[in-house]
C-alpha cells in the first residue's frame, strides 16, 4: 500500500494556555477526583486522602494562576477505560481526574483516593498520580508523576521512577504531613518548574 494511504495525520501543535484561561471554567469540586460530578456521591472504595503543594519557578518564586490536572487509577489500580483489560473491575463511582488552579502563593490542592498499583508489560507500576501543569510561559504542559514513600520497594521497581536519575527521585515523592486534616491523611507535593538539576522536579515527555 502506498504511504499516502497509511501515513498518519500529524498531530496539532501544543501552545501555551496563556494567562487568561477562564476562571468561569472552574467550579467547586473540580479538584475532587473521588466523585464523577459535582452532585455525585464520592467513591468509598479505598482511603480518601488530601494532596496539596506549591508550584514555583526559577528562583523559587510562586507560579500564580497555574492550572494543574491530576489523573490516576482507583484504589484497586484499575481504570474505567478500554485501555485497561480489567476495566470491568474498576470503581464505577471514581472519576480519577481533577483540575485545580494555584493561588497567589502558588498553592494547589486535590482530594482523591490513595491509588493502587498494577502489573503492566513495561513493569510493575507503583501507586502514583499523574500531574500536568499548564500556565503562562509554559509553551507546552509540564508532566510529572507523584509517588508515595510508603511503597519504597514498588517505587524502586517502577518503570517510570527508574528512568529518573537516582539523585532526583526524591522530588517525585509526596510527603505525608504530621497532622491529619478533616480526619484524612494529607500529603504535600511541591513542583519546581525550573531550577538547578538538584532543585527541578523531573518532568516527562509525551
Amino acid at each position, binding site marked *: 500500500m502506498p504511504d499516502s494511504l497509511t501515513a498518519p495525520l500529524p498531530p496539532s501543535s501544543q501552545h501555551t494556555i496563556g494567562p487568561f484561561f477562564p476562571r468561569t*471554567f472552574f467550579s467547586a469540586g473540580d479538584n475532587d477526583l473521588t466523585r464523577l460530578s459535582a452532585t455525585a456521591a464520592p467513591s468509598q472504595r479505598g482511603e480518601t486522602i488530601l494532596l496539596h503543594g506549591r508550584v514555583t519557578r526559577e528562583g523559587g518564586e510562586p*507560579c500564580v494562576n497555574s492550572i494543574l490536572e491530576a489523573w490516576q487509577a482507583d484504589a484497586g489500580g484499575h481504570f474505567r477505560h478500554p485501555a485497561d483489560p480489567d476495566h470491568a473491575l474498576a470503581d464505577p463511582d471514581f472519576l480519577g481526574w481533577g483540575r485545580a488552579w494555584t493561588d497567589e502563593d502558588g498553592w494547589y490542592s486535590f482530594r482523591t483516593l490513595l491509588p493502587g498499583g498494577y502489573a503492566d508489560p513495561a513493569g510493575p507500576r507503583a501507586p502514583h498520580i499523574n500531574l500536568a501543569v499548564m500556565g503562562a510561559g509554559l509553551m507546552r504542559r509540564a508532566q510529572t508523576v507523584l509517588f508515595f514513600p510508603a511503597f519504597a520497594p514498588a517505587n524502586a521497581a517502577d518503570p517510570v521512577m527508574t528512568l529518573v536519575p537516582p539523585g532526583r527521585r526524591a522530588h517525585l515523592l509526596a510527603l505525608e504531613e504530621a497532622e491529619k486534616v478533616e480526619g484524612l491523611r494529607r500529603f504535600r507535593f511541591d513542583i519546581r518548574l525550573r531550577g538547578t538539576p538538584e532543585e527541578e522536579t523531573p518532568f516527562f515527555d*509525551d
Partner: protein
Amino acid sequence: MDLLTQPTLPKPGLLKPGQLKPGLAPDVFPPLAEGIEPAVPVPGYPNTWTHTPAQPLLRRPATRTEVAGPLDLWRKLPCDESNLAMPAPGRVAQGQLMHMSGRILDEDGRPVRGAVVELWQANAAGRYFHPIDQRAAPLDPNFVGNGRVRTDEEGRYAFFTIKPGAYPVPVKDTWWRPPHVHFSILGPSSLSRLVTQMYFPGDPMNEWDRILHSIHDPAARARLIARQTHPAEVGDGWLAFTHDIVLRGRHATPEA
C-alpha cells in the same frame, strides 16, 4: 437571513455515561516529528525563560495510566455553552459574528467522539473578560468569550461567537498577538490532552507572532490556521470558519 437566527450548533454526543467503546481509545503514541512542538524559550517572552524546565524531559513507556484517561468528563464539566455571541435573547456581542466548527480527529483520521472542547478568546477589541487583563481596551457587556461543548459521534464541535481582536503583549520588547482562539481539548487519553490556539487565514500579524513561530515547522504552523467558508455558502448573517484538530494517538493495527 435574520441576523439573530441561531446557526447550527452541536448536539451532545450519543455516548452514555460510563460507556466503554474499544474503538474510543487510541493505544499507540508514536514519537512526535521535529518542529511540531514549540521551541523554548521564546525570544522576548520572559516567562518562558523562568517557567520552562531546564532539564531534559524523560521519555517514559506508555502504560495504562498514560494511555487511559477520563471518558465521561462531561459529567464533571458541563458541556452546554456553545453560543458566546448571544448571552441572552436580544443581547448580541459586538464584532464580526462568526460560526466556528470542525472535527476532533486522532492521528489515524478517526473522529474522537465525546471529547470535551473548551474555547476562550478576546472580545472584538482584543480584551479578555478576565481579572488579569487590565489593558485599556473596552470590555463588551454582552461578551464573556468562553464556551465548552462535547464532540458528537462524528467528532464535530461548533461554537457561535465573534471574531476576536488582536492585542499587544505587555513585555519590554512588545509585539501584537494576531487574532486567535484558544482551545483546550480533553480526549480519551491523558497523552492526547491538547491545549492549542487557532489563527485566522491571511492576517499579516501571523507572520510576526512569536508564539506561533515558536513552532519551527511551517507545515505545523499552517495546520493551526483555520479555513474560511466562502461567504456565498454562509449567507449574510455571519462569517464561518472551519478548523480540524488532530490529537495524539493511533490505534494498533494487526500485523499485515
